């Protein structure tokens, strides 16, 4: 019976800890504008705000969302989470990069004037890079290749209204690496990157020297073919 009571207590305690809490008598206004690289407004970009917990099985707790208007403007009225990290995510269905505004309300840190102003969120055009690697050389030839390209996500972490560069990363490099041999001589897949960015392709055939090639992604659907 004692063990059972302890178990119930532990569950209640765990449950209590995991429940998000909100500041009484408070509402936050999350606002901004979604623009493209030419400062033209992006219509219908989805802006979503949620509590983010890395160590929490639910991962997120929805706070509110809005779609950007004709002028790119958006506005979300939200409750203010207490002692939590939160994210404002900006995504457009129309092949644009993604933007994440991150901050927290630790130690009673509240947004100035109860406003989270993202101001102008600039999204860049994405490109889908389809690559095909085909072996034309004799059996036994191996290929070790990699792509190095900018990510399509931009994370900016703000603390007390100032960006924290240590916790922020914007279009950081992504690295994909594969090894092809007789079991898997060919490969075909795709990745997303920023339109106009430079992609680095490195490869080593058998135990030969490493070759580095670069190419600029200048189309929304970029085809890359390589044979060895």
């Amino acid at each position, binding site marked *: 019976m004692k063990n059972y009571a302890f178990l119930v207590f532990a569950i209640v305690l765990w449950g209590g800890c995991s429940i998000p809490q*909100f500041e009484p008598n*408070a509402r*936050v206004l999350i606002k901004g504008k979604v623009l493209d690289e030419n400062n033209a407004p992006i219509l219908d970009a989805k802006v979503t705000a949620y509590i983010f917990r890395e160590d929490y099985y639910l991962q997120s707790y929805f*706070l509110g969302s809005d779609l950007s208007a004709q002028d790119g403007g958006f506005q979300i009225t939200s*409750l203010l989470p207490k002692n939590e990290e939160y994210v404002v995510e900006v995504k457009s269905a129309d092949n644009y990069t993604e933007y994440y505004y991150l901050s927290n309300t630790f130690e009673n840190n509240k947004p100035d004037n109860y406003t989270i102003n993202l101001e102008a969120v600039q999204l860049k055009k994405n490109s889908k890079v389809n690559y095909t690697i085909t072996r034309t050389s004799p059996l036994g030839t191996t290929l070790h290749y990699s792509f190095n390209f900018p990510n399509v996500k931009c994370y900016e972490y703000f603390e007390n209204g100032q960006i924290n560069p240590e916790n922020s990363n914007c279009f950081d490099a992504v690295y994909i690496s594969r090894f092809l041999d007789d079991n898997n001589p060919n490969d075909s897949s795709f990745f997303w990157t920023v339109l106009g960015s430079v992609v680095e392709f490195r490869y080593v055939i058998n135990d030969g020297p490493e070759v580095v090639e670069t190419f600029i992604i200048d189309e929304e659907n970029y085809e890359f073919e390589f044979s060895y």
Partner: protein
Amino acid sequence: MNLNFRIKLCCFSLLFTCCSLSFAQNNKAKDQGVEVSNKNLGYFAYEYALPITTGDNFTGLGLKGKFGVNLKLHVFVYKGFFVSGTAGAHYFKVKDKSIVGNYEKTTAIHQYLSVGYEIEPVTKLKLGVSAAVLGRSRYKNKIDPNNKLVFQTDRGRIRAYDAYIHYMLVSQLAVYINYTYRNDHMNIQTAAELNSIFDNASFHTIGFGFRFCFGKKDLISTLKNNY
């Protein structure tokens, strides 16, 4: 002329009418040699209410009334003048989360003290008006319908104006209809752009209830007789 002012004007007009009727009734009663005083010391009332949200604020734009309950204790201080205490709750569901924030339901709990005046223009029929002088409200916003522990609260100062008609079924029991206009002043802190939305919470309620009377005379008359 805003709604709040119009409601106040209506209440004062009604109060003025009640007073005029009361003085007329008093004079007539004096002429006829009949003493006019309230027949009860007070009453308890239980009321079922229908809240109807209104106004360009978070209640009017973002909430929809479901139902409410009120308990009232009403004491006649002198003749038709009374002091009344009300406690209860109104239940709302969220109709537009983009206005209020991401939650599903609101329970507005209130306690307030009001003063007013009641007349009996026709036998068995009583009319009264009152205004809250002191009171607090607490709006409990339920975020997750499956988890009662996930909630947020807003608090406010009550501004309530009541008008009612009671019909006495027997000497100690009446049925009544009550109208209340609530325009609570909220303590919600928010961005300047949203202040006008969250400054006030306003709604009308139509209540139906029973009144259980006690005592024979008003408070001052009772005290005079006893001491």
